[in-house]
């Protein structure tokens, strides 16, 4: 019964080292890392979200859900989460250092980001039906209405949970879709289909009353007569067109057209025979002369105006100085 103690010792040592390495890798000592504690409130179902589900910030896993509490008074569900601060680099961190952000610094940063629109939302994690909590800036979504302001310790706390920092949430994509659909359905439900149907029936009844079958029959009969009349007229026209009169008429029209052609030829001949260029040149000379005469008349009228003005001035002067008729103008006035 000899024992290979080296082999046994090697086996035990290796197995223990493997165990320690495995549990360390799997996060046994994660509790030593600095943590921040967040809480949010959702109004929708949290089906698929469990304790231990991941919390991600813009896709980066930063923590996990630690508790899910139903808050009966507000009919909300509180989600408590634990965030590993090792994931966040400190503002004062250099490239080579490895210091994590402090909890206070993280809360301040979060408060500022919440004011800028940072929210959390339940998101599906693949096709398995599992979900995770995403923290991100979601555009065009309205936050879940809550009385608490961001960062304030909210009402779904119990006794000693003042360590939690509140972060608002927004409805998930499915919840938003459901809300939209609910709104649409509510609007559709508000349409008075019964009233519309009633009014439609009434309208049809009135139409039926107005358009009685006897009247319709009469109308159809009249229409038939009208059609018959049109047909007869058409036949008559066809008969007329077949007769000789129309041929005579066409012959008269042809004669008239020929006469018009002859007349046109005569007019062209008369025009060619007349001395239109000479006449036009004479007219042009006449126009020039009339223009010259007009200018002369204008000059004459201008001179007449000047003469009238001088006479008026003379008359005025004589009126003021009648002695000027004997003595003439004085030296000074000259």
């Amino acid at each position, binding site marked *: 019964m000899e024992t290979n103690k080296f*082999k046994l010792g090697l086996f*035990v040592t290796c197995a*223990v080292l493997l165990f320690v390495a495995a549990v360390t890798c799997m*996060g046994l000592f994660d509790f030593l890392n600095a943590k921040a504690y967040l809480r949010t409130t959702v109004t929708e179902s949290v089906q698929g979200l469990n304790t231990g589900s991941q919390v991600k910030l813009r896709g980066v896993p930063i923590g996990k859900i630690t508790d899910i509490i139903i808050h009966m008074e507000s009919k909300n569900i509180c989600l408590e989460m634990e965030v590993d601060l090792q994931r966040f680099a400190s503002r004062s961190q250099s490239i080579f250092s490895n210091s994590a952000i402090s909890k206070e610094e993280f809360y301040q940063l979060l408060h500022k980001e919440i004011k800028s629109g940072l929210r959390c939302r339940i998101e599906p994690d*693949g096709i398995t039906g599992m979900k995770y909590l995403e923290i991100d800036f979601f555009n065009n979504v309205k936050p879940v209405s809550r009385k608490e302001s961001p960062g304030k310790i909210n009402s779904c706390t119990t006794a000693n949970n003042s360590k939690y920092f509140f972060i608002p949430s927004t409805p998930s994509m499915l919840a938003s879709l459901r809300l939209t659909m609910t709104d649409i359905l509510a609007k559709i439900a508000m349409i008075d289909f019964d009233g519309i149907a009633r009014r439609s029936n009434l309208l049809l009844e009135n139409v039926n009353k107005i358009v009685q079958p006897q009247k319709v029959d009469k109308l159809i009969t009249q229409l038939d007569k009208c059609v018959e009349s049109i047909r007869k007229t058409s036949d008559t026209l066809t008969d007329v067109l077949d007769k000789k009169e129309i041929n005579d008429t066409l012959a008269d029209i042809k004669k008239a057209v020929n006469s018009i052609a002859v007349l046109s030829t005569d007019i062209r001949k008369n025009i060619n025979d007349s001395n239109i260029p000479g006449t036009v040149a004479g007219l042009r000379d006449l126009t020039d002369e009339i223009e010259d005469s007009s200018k002369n008349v204008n000059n004459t009228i201008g001179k007449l105006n000047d003469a009238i003005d001088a006479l008026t001035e003379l008359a005025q002067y004589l009126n003021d100085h009648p002695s000027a008729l004997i003595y003439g103008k004085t030296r000074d006035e000259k």
Partner: protein
Amino acid sequence: MAGEDQKKSFPEDFFISVGGMFYTLKEEIFSCIVFAGRVSSAVLDAFRHPGKIRKRELLYFMNLCGADGVPITFLICFLTGFILGYQCAVQMQKYGADAFLAGLVGCAMVRELSPLMVSIIATGRTGSAFAAEIGSMKVSEEVDALRTMGFMPERFLVVPKLFAMALMMPLLAIIGDIAGILGGAVIGITVLHQPLSAYYSQTVSWVRPGYFLESIIKTAVFGIIICFIGCWRGFRTGSDALAVGRSTTSSVVLSILFVIIADTILAHFFNNIFF
């Protein structure tokens, strides 16, 4: 005429068979309870007086149960992880759920398959060996001789084996866990073309440290069961030439049966209480 007299009618024969079966069952249950009592007494005595534990035998059985079983345990667990990974990869690839392979293989191997595989290997290697060893001693009346001399044979023959199994099986399970995860990783890397770092991070995110604790506790319990049944069947060995073989066979069958039953109970226990 004498042969005809010995023939029984159908109902009588049936009831005799049923009665015999239940009598045997009762005898086995009683003997099991008595054996359990004796082993418990010996274990308590060993805890009270640790110096009385036969260390040489303890080390021998630790070597037999643990170190000697490493290669076969590693190989079987690695192949189990490989097969599980391959079968799952083929199906999961259809649904685009490749990323979950690491979690599935890791959780399945650490929580269930590795403890079960290690226990089945231990049943075949160690449990049957214990039954054969004690059975042979029973056939050669060595056990009776110990009793005649006033010794408690369970203290010498069962306690070192029990301690060795309870100590070594969890260590084997750890090696089995790692081997299974490696087997799945080979498939993840070669079939699904996942980077090793991605497979590792997925495994780490899914497999919790508590799962290793579950694996350790389970295999320790299974080791005790296997050792107990192997030794019990050894002590129940008859005096004929074929008895050792029967004891060995029954120890393997019963060990696997009780390991599965214990696994069912423990799985429920761990899922509802710890995780």
